[in-house]
């Protein structure tokens, strides 16, 4: 085990752990935001640069500070490393700049975007964004395209985190989803808009940190904060059948995987519980699901509006299910 200090808090982690995961072990607000890193997807991370942190001391053996800010999601810790995240002025400044870069071409369509309320870019913009934009040029625009009959791709909103590319590479059998073009013209594409024909292709929606990939069976049906997320399970031959159903009254509006507080799909029995397309898109009837109980959502999230009295899962459960 190696000892590292993140924002004056000491933590012991396995050698080879990344700075981000060491910070996540501490938890709370020392955790840098991550728009592209996704622990369940091998090779992800390093791209968005929102998780940049300052390394004030490299290690016990070589305590020199690192000259540049480093991407915490892809830099392994060394014994005795001292990391500054929220305590570093430089980090705040540069994270604000990265946020600005991500937003200059991002449309201000949150009022009609299905991701609003659970969008990582909204959270990032709320914490690190500026009040106005300095970008005077026209934003780049694309026409929305269909990826199969169930998934919609809005390239306008995409921040090119590559998460969906990794899903396509790692969960599905053949690589038909990738990135075309270069620089600011780069775009996510299934080659010539070819559908990803795979049972697990719907997971690109769950990993998308913004509203670029949305579920066509749910689009424009409801705002997420009007829905009640419930843990539910079903008998499924393709996946573990553990999902979250988002309910409006007795109706299931949409089905997603079970995401943890970092927006990553949870592990169930040691395996990442990706859900299959049948569970996600087709099982919209309550009778097909065994509702286990309400999903605990961070009470600071807009989704928990009117659902939670205080951080007390038992009371919340009563309120949600209507029992006294």
């Amino acid at each position, binding site marked *: 085990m190696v000892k590292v200090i993140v924002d004056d808090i000491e933590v012991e982690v396995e050698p080879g752990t990344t700075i981000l995961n060491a910070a996540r072990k501490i938890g709370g607000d020392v955790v840098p935001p991550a728009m592209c890193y996704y622990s369940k997807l091998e090779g992800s991370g390093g791209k968005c640069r929102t998780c940049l942190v300052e390394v004030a001391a490299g290690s016990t053996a070589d305590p020199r500070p690192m000259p540049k800010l480093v991407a915490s999601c892809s830099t*392994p810790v060394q014994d005795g490393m001292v990391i500054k995240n929220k305590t570093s002025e430089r980090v705040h400044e540069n994270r604000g700049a990265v946020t600005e870069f991500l937003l200059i071409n991002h449309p201000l369509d949150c009022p009609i975007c299905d991701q609003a309320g659970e969008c990582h870019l909204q959270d990032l913009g709320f914490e690190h964004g500026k009040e106005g934009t300095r970008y005077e040029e026209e934003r780049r625009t694309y026409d929305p395209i269909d990826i199969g009959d169930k998934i919609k791709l809005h390239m306008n909103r995409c921040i090119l985190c590559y998460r969906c590319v990794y899903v396509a590479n790692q969960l599905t059998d053949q690589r038909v989803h990738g990135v075309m073009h*270069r620089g600011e013209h*780069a775009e996510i594409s299934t080659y010539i808009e070819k559908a990803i024909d795979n049972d697990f292709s719907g997971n690109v929606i769950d990993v998308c940190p913004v509203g670029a990939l949305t579920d066509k069976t749910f689009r424009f049906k409801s705002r997420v904060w009007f829905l009640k997320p419930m843990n539910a399970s079903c008998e499924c031959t393709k996946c573990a059948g553990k999902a979250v159903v988002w309910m409006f009254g007795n109706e299931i509006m949409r089905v997603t995987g079970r995401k943890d507080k970092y927006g990553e799909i949870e592990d169930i029995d040691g395996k990442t519980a990706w859900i299959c397309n049948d569970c996600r898109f087709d099982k919209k009837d309550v009778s097909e699901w065994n509702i286990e109980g309400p999903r605990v959502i961070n009470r600071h999230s807009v989704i928990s509006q009117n659902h939670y009295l205080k951080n007390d899962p038992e009371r919340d459960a009563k309120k949600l299910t209507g029992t006294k």
Partner: protein
Amino acid sequence: MGRKLLLEHVNVPGIETYEVYRKNGGYRSVEKALKTMSPQNVVEEVQASGLRGRGGAGFPTGMKWSFLAKPEGVPRYLLCNADESEPGTFKDRYLMEKIPHLLVEGMITSSYALGCNQAYIYIRGEYMWVLEIVEKAIAEAYANGWLGKNILGSGYDLDLSIAPGGGAYICGEETALIESLEGKRGNPRIKPPFPAVKGLWGCPTVVNNVETIAAVVPIVNDGGAEYAKIGIGKSTGTKLISACGNLVKPGVYELDLGVSVEEFIYSDEWCGGIANGKKLKACVPGGSSVPILPANLVCKTAEGTDRLMTYESLAEGGFASGSMLGSGGFIVFDEDQCIVRNTWNFARFYAHESCGQCSPCREGTGWMEKVLHRLEYGHGNLRDIDLLAEINKKIEGNTICPLGDAAAWPVAAAIRHFREEFEWHVTNPDEAQKRNFGIASAHVPLV
């Protein structure tokens, strides 16, 4: 002066063919290395020579070679980076076009030193005719027993292949080059791990510039100590400089590191001065990605000492008043050139060549290009100049690979040294369309 190690026989007719090259002392280094030296000896010679990477970063080659991981049973690879695409740099093309066998010879000797049995030359897609020349040279080397199995009866095997790129600047970044060679999209990898540990197909890999590999030939022939005698301090040996712009005699020159910049620009032996009797306005001494220098800082440093063509001297004064030797793309501007337009042109290049992987570079380079376009075409305002300075500060150092820095430095330097000219573009938009600013008043040239 005028010593030539790489370009010694460049004007011998037929030097691109094996027979003529061999007659002029070609492949001596391979004979010497394979017959009389151990691979470690060759590495030691390169370390003793003080040779620094000629691709731009100037990292000591011997040190890079010594970092190469050597696990048992895992192949190692040597890659030659011939993806020369930096605006202003064309020295590798000249070398490969004129003396392709020098590169092949260097590849064999270097591969032997590193214990590689497979080496690749990754050549820029736009250099297709050069590829054919080098390919022919490789075929000749195979035919004469310098490549293949059991070279010179030493038991050492080497295969050398050549692979063309698709014409992307980013593939000159070593990990993007590796990705591209593996057949993937040329995105730089996130480091660590470095290529010396995990490179091509996950195996230890060394990536060297064409000129670096060619320089191994004279180092092995004459010994590293002899090579180290040339040059000043840590800048040893000779360097190819591709001079272009408003010069009387632009072209590729081989010079001893340590020639003064003034001599290089003005003496008849080299560039012969500024063309058409004009005055020097500015100079980019190492390819488009290094900071631009105004006339008064080209030949002299801020302290007033002579500036020399060495890694150290060109960098003297840091980014405030210095630049870098970079890849040796020496671009000279006379008084008629517009710095704003040139900066926009560079920014356009980087915006076009950014791979689009990390957000500061993807969005930032495009943004800078648009702001500079506005300034150049008279739609800018004074706030834009500060905005530009701020954007490039936020790109620099925050990206995966050095392309972000390369895009930010020229813009930062242009604003630092030629701010009046940017302001003049804002305050006199109509006039700026019709004529150029001339020499910035604060930077009166010394010559």
